């Protein structure tokens, strides 16, 4: 297959060249009749990318496509300029941590990472060094000599991470890497991701915990039913949705009716509702930028006493609600 | 007009007596088990032999019926007397059917609870491991009793009633043999089936394991006797052991191939204990690692 032709409008970080991106061009994957993903066009720059969507939306298919475990039924895919017809190169570039555990029985943590490196073609001394480096990074040095079967869930997650990172790939694909980790381990792993992303890696993380995705991701990809529903920086995505889904903000203040009269003068305000306890105003507006600048004015000119200002639908969670909703799966 | 909102509420009603809760398990098991038409037919057929026995006893005491069927009464009394051997044969037949019944019902008893980690749900309630085992065993104990000693004793008392004149008193040993022999077999089989069900996940495999263990050990026991030229090899075979026990209970002559009754009792008790131990090992809320 030829390298993909230049793709239309790179949405995220246009300054990053194509050969430093993961590019999907109209990719579809079908399992017989069953849909995996349909007509996916993406261009993922380095940094932490959150992959979000209900179960069965195509996240795992997408990840398997990037890793090269699956070939697209249609469309072209390239990872840092390497197309899917050069699998050995691809495997070198990519590290993959799956959602479900699949450990060869009887192996210790050390052996698990080490053997993987040897398979990659590294010599013994090199492999040993890289193995320890990876194990240290995930904080499993004491447990490395024990069998993986005896590990707790959190430890298994971390050893999978070590294995994914050991050969120093440029792209890390991690399926629910924080599952089962206690809060401290979560924080440690998240800071690890940040380190890697700062070093120029692609860290693609799939997760159901939306507020964490919000916190750590530079950009997000939302999937539903095999289609990409949105992609980009969360603020950018939310801004784009303002027409259809006006921004909602709750301002707790001492004179909500005063604020209401001021905002009603604006065209972009769709709705203003006084909160049930009488001490707040819920505003819906099609132009959040204008609204906030107006708010500055109201506070200064009318001496409005503000307690809190809270956008109620500006995060990944709200975007998810609007674009995917609860109909992804009847659970 | 009223609008009703469904919400969570505590239960403040009466509860069932604690001692009887283990019987919930057989009740639920029977709901499933009796849905199968195959099983219902089989279960009905299990009463065929007792019914035949009933007819025979009746015929022994009803001259006109015999004449009607043109059967010579003396021949009948000589050929098929109602004695300990008669009841012993009956137990044999029903005993074999018991094995079949256990193959039907046994394998699905414990494995569905273990397969998806259901035990903690049982044991997080005021319900002990013992109640669980007792409840599961009762599924088999009740069904097996219905086809062994219950019809057996009914026939015994029917015979006694028709024969009159202290026949029961003279033959009380037979009643005892029926009762003890049935229960020995029932308990052993139930423990066996439950242990297999607790350790083997899939029903077909469990059935094969049950059959296999039974018949393989039968052959193996005899082979052992042959090769090593001993008598105790057959103690590992349930068939030999129970045969010996039943013969001794009914006061019939033991066969030379069978191990002596005393040793058989010990072997049976040991086997049952092993199955009980195996069962308890699997019935835990949580395994303790290391």
């Amino acid at each position, binding site marked *: 297959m030829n390298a993909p032709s230049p793709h239309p409008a790179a949405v995220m970080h246009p300054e990053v060249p194509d050969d430093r991106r993961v590019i999907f061009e109209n990719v579809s994957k079908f399992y017989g009749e069953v849909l995996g993903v349909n007509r996916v066009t993406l261009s993922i720059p380095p940094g932490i990318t959150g992959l979000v969507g209900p179960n069965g939306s195509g996240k795992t298919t997408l990840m398997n496509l990037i890793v090269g475990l699956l070939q697209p039924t249609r469309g072209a895919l390239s990872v840092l300029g390497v197309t899917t017809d050069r699998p050995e190169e691809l495997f070198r570039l990519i590290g993959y941590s799956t959602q479900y555990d699949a450990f060869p029985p009887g192996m210790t943590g050390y052996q698990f990472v080490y053997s993987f490196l040897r398979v990659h073609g590294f010599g013994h001394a090199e492999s040993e060094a890289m193995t320890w480096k990876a194990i240290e990074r995930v904080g499993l040095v004491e447990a490395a000599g024990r069998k993986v079967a005896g590990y707790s869930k959190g430890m298994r997650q971390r050893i999978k991470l070590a294995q994914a990172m050991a050969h120093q790939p440029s792209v890390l694909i991690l399926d629910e890497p924080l599952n089962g980790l206690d809060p401290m381990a979560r924080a440690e792993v998240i800071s690890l991701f940040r380190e890697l992303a700062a070093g120029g890696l692609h860290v693609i993380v799939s997760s159901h915990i939306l507020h964490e995705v919000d916190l750590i991701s530079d950009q997000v990809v939302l999937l539903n039913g095999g289609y990409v529903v949105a992609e980009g920086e969360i603020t950018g995505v939310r801004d784009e949705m303002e027409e259809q889904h006006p921004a909602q903000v709750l301002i707790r203040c001492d004179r909500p009716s005063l604020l209401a009269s001021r905002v009603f003068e604006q065209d972009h305000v769709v709705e203003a509702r006084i909160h049930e306890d009488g001490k707040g105003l819920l505003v819906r507006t099609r132009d959040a930028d204008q609204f906030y600048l107006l708010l500055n004015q109201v506070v200064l000119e009318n001496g409005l006493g503000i307690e809190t200002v809270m956008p109620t639908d500006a995060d990944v969670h709200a975007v998810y609600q609007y674009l995917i909703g609860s109909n992804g799966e009847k659970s | 007009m009223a609008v009703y909102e469904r919400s*969570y509420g505590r239960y403040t009603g009466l509860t069932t007596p604690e001692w009887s809760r283990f019987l919930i398990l057989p009740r639920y098991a029977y709901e499933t088990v009796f849905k199968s038409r195959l099983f219902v037919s089989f279960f009905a057929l299990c009463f065929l032999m007792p019914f035949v026995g009933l007819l025979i006893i009746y015929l022994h005491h009803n001259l006109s019926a015999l004449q009607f069927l043109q059967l010579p009464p003396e021949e009948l009394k000589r050929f098929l007397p109602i004695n300990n051997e008669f009841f012993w044969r009956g137990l044999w037949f029903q005993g074999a059917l018991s094995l079949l019944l256990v193959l039907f019902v046994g394998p699905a008893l414990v494995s*569905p609870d273990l397969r998806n980690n259901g035990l903690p749900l049982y044991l997080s309630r005021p319900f002990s491991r013992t109640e669980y085992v007792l409840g599961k065993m009762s599924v088999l104990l009740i069904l097996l009793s219905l086809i062994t000693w219950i019809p057996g004793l009914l026939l015994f008392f029917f015979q006694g009633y028709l024969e009159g004149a202290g026949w029961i008193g003279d033959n009380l040993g037979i009643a005892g043999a029926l009762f003890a022999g049935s229960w020995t077999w029932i308990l052993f089989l139930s423990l066996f089936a439950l242990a297999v069900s607790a350790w083997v996940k899939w029903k077909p495999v469990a059935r094969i394991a049950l059959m296999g263990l039974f018949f393989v050990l039968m052959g193996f026991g005899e082979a052992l006797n042959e090769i090593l030229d001993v008598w105790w090899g057959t103690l590992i075979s349930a068939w030999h052991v129970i045969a010996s026990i039943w013969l001794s209970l009914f006061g019939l002559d033991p066969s030379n191939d069978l191990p002596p009754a005393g040793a058989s009792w010990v072997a049976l008790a040991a086997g049952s204990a092993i199955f009980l131990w195996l069962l308890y090992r699997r019935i835990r809320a949580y395994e303790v690692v290391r």
Partner: protein
Amino acid sequence: MSHPINQTTTPGPVIELDGLQVSLGGRPILKGLKASLSGRCIGLLGPNGAGKTTLLHTLLGFYPANGGTARLFGHDIRTEMRSVRSLIGYMPENDAFVAGMTGIRFVRLMAELSGLPSSQAIERAHEVLFYVGLGEARYREVGTYSLGMKQLAKLAQALAHGPKVLFLDEPTNGLDPPARERMLKLIRDIRDTGEVHVILSSHLLRDVEECCEEVLVLKNGQIATYCNLEEERRANRKFLELELRAERGSGEEAAFAADVEKLGVECAVSARQRIKLVLPEGMEVRDLYQLAAARNVQIRRLDYKRDSLEDIFLKAMEMDTEVAGHGRV
């Protein structure tokens, strides 16, 4: 029919831990826990291996106490385990159901095993399945349920017999966002009925923060801290979090932060235009708005520090917040 259960509302703590010690496989896991827990919803936190699950299992009687004891609504676990169990509804962390049963049959069985008469059990089973949202699926086999539905089925069997206290172990495990929301909302609803106390054990601080009023943090088999979240939140009134936005690339957000610091306010910038500051005496929110208007910066969010639980937890673990890598103050 025997005595009615769950009728007396015992005043006093839900759970009392009295020097509870538990060893498993020769290793001490719980090392003398002493606490008195009360409240509608109590969070149970701690790193892996701290003993959270062991504590729940000990209260359920799966393991015996090696020393000390514990009381649930005054019933001692060493002597009255049956009564203790009748008061508890347990939702385990792992998959837990009986294969080959429909939802309704499964919940019925569990309700009856808890002592409900057969007629009541079937009524309550239907009720509780509707309540958790499995109404339409209740005639299907639990084995065919999706992950979220299985979690709900676990919750249903825990509720069916109307216990006084619920033990929920990682209830949102593996659920996708809408299912997580539903589960948490359900937990809050249950808590708000006032009929049952909830003990929620989870790794997700967010879950605990959203549902619980009190938190017990375990570490290495001992209690690291036990505190009341409401009180903590009230104490955090002076700590503000702001989220700013100015024109792309104008750098005005950083300039704003600098302005704030010039006023002598302790302030720290975290990820993505988020600022945390401590409002000193004499300074008001209005002053911040003055700065914002001057710089043409939008204050997109202004709120009191909402992650008190994370701080509580990290402090309990004796870990520096900086090390956690969030770049917070």
